[in-house]
C-alpha cells in the first residue's frame, strides 16, 4: 500500500494558507467546544457557508472544518471540568470525574491530563486513519449497490440502538430525515417529487439550510427561553501539573479508550458521545475501586481519549465510502458534495490533495491543539464568560448571513428559520437532531442503492443477501440491536 497521498497531503497542509486555516479551525473548535451553547456540528454548520462563499478551495475548506470538529473535542472538556456543564455531547462523561477534580483544587492538573489524553487519542486516530482509510479504499471497490444497502441498514441499526436515551425518538428522528430527503429529483427515475412545480425545489432541500436551521436556529430559540442569568462562573483553575504516577496510571486507560473510540468512530452512525460513554463505562468496570466519579484521573482520561479518537475514526467511512461516521461528518460530507466531489475509493488516488491534505493537517492540528490547550488554556476559560447577550445575536447573524450569501435568496433564509422552529419544537419534545441529519444523508444512499440493486437483479430481493460483505453487515445489524437488549435483560 502506498502512502504517496500522505506526502502530497503534507505538501498541501504545510502551505501558509492551509496552516492558517488549521490554526483558525483549532482555535474556533476549542472555543466552540468550550462554549456550552454550541457544539462541533453547529460550529461546522455555521462555518461551511462562510467558507464556501469565500470560495476557499475544497481542501482548505475541509482542513478548516475538520479542525473545528476535532478541536471541539478538546474544548468540550474545559467547561465540563470547570463548570460541570459539558461543552459538547462528547464531553458529557468528562464532567463525571473532571468536575470533582476541579473542586478539589486540581483543575490545572485535570485540564493538562485531559489535554494529554485528548492528544494521544487524536494522534492514534489519525495514524489509524492514515493506514486504514486507503486499505478500506481498496476494499471499497467491492461495495456494489447490494453491499451499500446492507451497510446502510447496519448504520441505521447502530443509530437506533446506541444513540440517544430513547430509541423510539431516535427512530422517529431518522424517519423525519428520510422524509425530507425524498424532496426533489428522484435519483433513479428522474421524476420530481414534492416539488410543487417550483424549479427551486428540483434539487431538494439544501443541506446547509437544514443543518443551520436544525442546529443553530433551534439552539438560539432554546437559549432565548432561559432567562439570561449573567455569565458562567468557572472554578478557578489553580496551578499544578499531573504527577508522574497519575500519568502512568492513565496510560493504559488512554490507549484502550483510543482504540475503542476509533473503532466506534469508524462505525457508521455513531460518534464521539457514544465512544466516550463506552470508554468510561469500560474503564469503570475494569478499574473502579470506589474512586470513579469522585475525581479519578483515569475516569477523566478515558472519555477524553475516546471522543478524540472517535472524531478521527468517523472520517474513515466518510472518505472511503461516502458514508458519514457521525452527525458532524455528515455535515462535512455535505461540504464535499457542495464542491461536487463524491468521496469514494478514488478520492485517495485522484484527489490526494483533498484526502491527504485533510489527514496531514490533522497531524499538525493535533499538535497545535496540544499547545493551545495546555499553556494557553486560560484564554479559553476567559472566553467562556462571554455573556449570552453577545453570543445569541452573533450566532443568529452568522446563520442568516451564511445562508443568504450561499444561496442569495430570501426564501432560503425563511426556510431555514421555519426548519429551525420545527427543530426547536422537536427538541422541546426530547428529540435529538443528529438522527434527523443522518437520516437525511444516509436515506438518499439507502434509497438509491436499494433501487439500483433491485434494478440489477430485475426485482429479485435475493441480490441483497448474495455476497459475504452484505451478509456480514446484515449479521452485525441484527447483533447490534440484540446485544444491548440481551445485556440489559441479563443485568436485571
Amino acid at each position, binding site marked *: 500500500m502506498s502512502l504517496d497521498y500522505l506526502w502530497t497531503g503534507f505538501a498541501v497542509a504545510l502551505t501558509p494558507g492551509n496552516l492558517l486555516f488549521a490554526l483558525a479551525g483549532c482555535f474556533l473548535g476549542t472555543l466552540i467546544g468550550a462554549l456550552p451553547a454550541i457544539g462541533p456540528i453547529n460550529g461546522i454548520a455555521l462555518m461551511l457557508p462562510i467558507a464556501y462563499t469565500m470560495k476557499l478551495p475544497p481542501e482548505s475548506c475541509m482542513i478548516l472544518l475538520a479542525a473545528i470538529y476535532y478541536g471541539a473535542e478538546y474544548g468540550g472538556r474545559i467547561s465540563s471540568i470547570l463548570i460541570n456543564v459539558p461543552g459538547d455531547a462528547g464531553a458529557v462523561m468528562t464532567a463525571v470525574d473532571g468536575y470533582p477534580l476541579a473542586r478539589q483544587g486540581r483543575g490545572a492538573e485535570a485540564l493538562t491530563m485531559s489535554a494529554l489524553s485528548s492528544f494521544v487519542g487524536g494522534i492514534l486516530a489519525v495514524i489509524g486513519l492514515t493506514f486504514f482509510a486507503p486499505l478500506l479504499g481498496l476494499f471499497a471497490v467491492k461495495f*456494489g449497490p447490494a453491499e451499500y444497502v446492507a451497510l446502510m441498514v447496519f448504520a441505521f441499526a447502530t443509530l437506533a440502538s446506541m444513540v440517544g436515551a430513547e430509541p423510539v425518538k431516535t427512530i422517529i428522528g431518522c424517519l423525519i430525515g428520510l422524509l425530507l430527503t425524498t424532496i426533489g429529483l428522484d435519483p*433513479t427515475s428522474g421524476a420530481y417529487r414534492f416539488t410543487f412545480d417550483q424549479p427551486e425545489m428540483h434539487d431538494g432541500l439544501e443541506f446547509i439550510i437544514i443543518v443551520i436551521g436544525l442546529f443553530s436556529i433551534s439552539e438560539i430559540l432554546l437559549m432565548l427561553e432561559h432567562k439570561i442569568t449573567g455569565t458562567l462562573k468557572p472554578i478557578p483553575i489553580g496551578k499544578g501539573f499531573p504527577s508522574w504516577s497519575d500519568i502512568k496510571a492513565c496510560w493504559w486507560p488512554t490507549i484502550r479508550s483510543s482504540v475503542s473510540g476509533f473503532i466506534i468512530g469508524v462505525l457508521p452512525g455513531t460518534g464521539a458521545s457514544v465512544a466516550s460513554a463506552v470508554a468510561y463505562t469500560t474503564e469503570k468496570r475494569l478499574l473502579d475501586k470506589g474512586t470513579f466519579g469522585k475525581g479519578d484521573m483515569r475516569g477523566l482520561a478515558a472519555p477524553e481519549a475516546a471522543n478524540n479518537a472517535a472524531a478521527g475514526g468517523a472520517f474513515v467511512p466518510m472518505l472511503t465510502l461516502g458514508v458519514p461516521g457521525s452527525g458532524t461528518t455528515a455535515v462535512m460530507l455535505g461540504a464535499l458534495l457542495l464542491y*461536487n466531489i463524491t468521496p469514494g475509493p478514488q478520492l485517495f488516488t485522484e484527489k490526494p490533495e483533498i484526502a491527504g491534505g485533510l489527514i496531514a493537517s490533522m497531524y499538525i492540528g493535533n499538535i497545535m491543539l496540544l499547545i493551545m490547550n495546555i499553556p494557553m488554556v486560560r484564554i479559553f476559560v476567559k472566553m467562556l464568560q462571554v455573556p449570552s447577550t453577545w453570543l445569541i445575536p452573533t450566532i443568529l447573524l452568522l446563520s442568516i448571513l451564511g445562508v443568504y450569501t450561499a444561496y442569495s435568496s430570501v426564501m432560503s433564509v425563511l426556510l431555514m428559520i421555519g426548519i429551525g422552529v420545527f427543530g426547536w419544537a422537536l427538541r422541546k419534545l426530547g428529540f435529538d437532531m443528529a438522527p434527523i441529519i443522518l437520516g437525511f444523508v444516509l436515506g438518499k444512499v439507502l434509497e438509491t442503492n436499494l433501487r439500483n440493486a433491485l434494478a440489477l437483479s430485475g426485482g429479485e430481493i435475493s441480490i441483497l443477501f448474495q455476497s459475504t460483505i452484505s451478509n456480514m453487515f446484515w449479521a452485525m445489524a441484527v447483533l447490534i440491536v440484540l446485544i444491548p437488549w440481551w445485556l440489559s435483560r441479563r443485568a436485571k
Partner: protein
Amino acid sequence: MLGRLAGAVVAACSILLGASPTLAKPDKTECIVGAKPGGGFDLTCRLLGGTLQAANLIDRPMSYTYMEGGVGATAYNHIIGTRPGDPGAIVAVSTGSALLLAQKKFGAHDENAVRWVGALGAEFGSVIVAPDSPHKTLKDLVEGIKANPSEFSVAGGGAVGSQDWMKAALIFRAAGQDPKKMRYIALEGGGPVVTNILGGHVKIGSSDIAEFLPHHKSGKVRVLAVMSSERLTGDAKDIPTAKEQGYDILWTVWRGLYIGPKVSDADYNWWVEIVEKLSKTPEFRKEQESRGLYPFPSFGKTFADHVKADVARFKVLAQEAGLIK
C-alpha cells in the same frame, strides 16, 4: 469607481461616435451558472469570462452567479421571468438542459423561450467495459446484448432518462432491444461508474470520454467506442468511433450559452459575434483543450437551429423509451 467611470465613458463614446449601429456592448457582464460551482456550467462560464477578459473583449471582469436547481431549470425560469431584457446576463447551457426541455422538465417554457448565442465546445459520450471483458469491440457488445439482454447491466451517472441512460439506450436499441427493459443503475457522476465497473457490479459503463480516458490509459477499464462523428484528437485518437464500427450512435455534449428573450437584436448580435471571434483565438483553443473540451463551432442561428433539432430528436427518443407521452 474608476472602472465604472471608465466604462461609462467608453459606453458614452461608442454611442456618440455611433461606432457600430447593429452592435451594442453591455456595460457589465454576468454569467449565470445554473448549478453548484465545479460542474459543467461553471466550467462554461469560467471559460467564457476568463478568455474574454484575457482577449480584452470586455472592459470589466465578468461576474458569476450561481443559481442551482434542476440542471439549469431555475436559471432558465429566472432569465425568462425576471430578467428577460438584461443585455449583460448570459447563461450557461448544455445538452443535458436540452434533454430536460424535451422531457418537459424545465418548467412552463419551451426551447423557443430564450435567445441561443453559441457553443464554446463539446464533449462526447462513451461506453466502457471491464478490461477482462470478452467484448473487445462495440460489435461484440451489441451481439452479446442481442443474445442475452438481461445479462448486460449498465451503470450511468444520472437517473433514467438522463444523458448517460440515453447513450446506453442507443446501444440497446442498436441491438434490437427495448431500452425500457435495460437493467440500469443510476449513480452520481462518472467517478462511481468507473468504480462499479472495477468492482464487477455492472457490465457496461456509460458516461463521457473525458471521464473514462485516464482510466482507459491506465488499463483499469476498456473504452469500446466514442460517440463522436469523427475520430477525436490527442489522447483519444486511438479510440474508434461508434460510427466507424458500423453503428449510427452519436452523442455530443455541447456546452453553450443563451440570453433572455427580450434582449435587443443589437445586444444579441454583439454576443454572437464576440463568442465567435473569441473561439478563433489561439488562447481560447488552449483553454478549451485544457478543460477537456473539443471544438464545436456553432453560433447564432446555426446554434439555435442545432439546439432545437436536438430537442426534437430527444423528444422522439424519450417517447420511444416511454419517458413522455
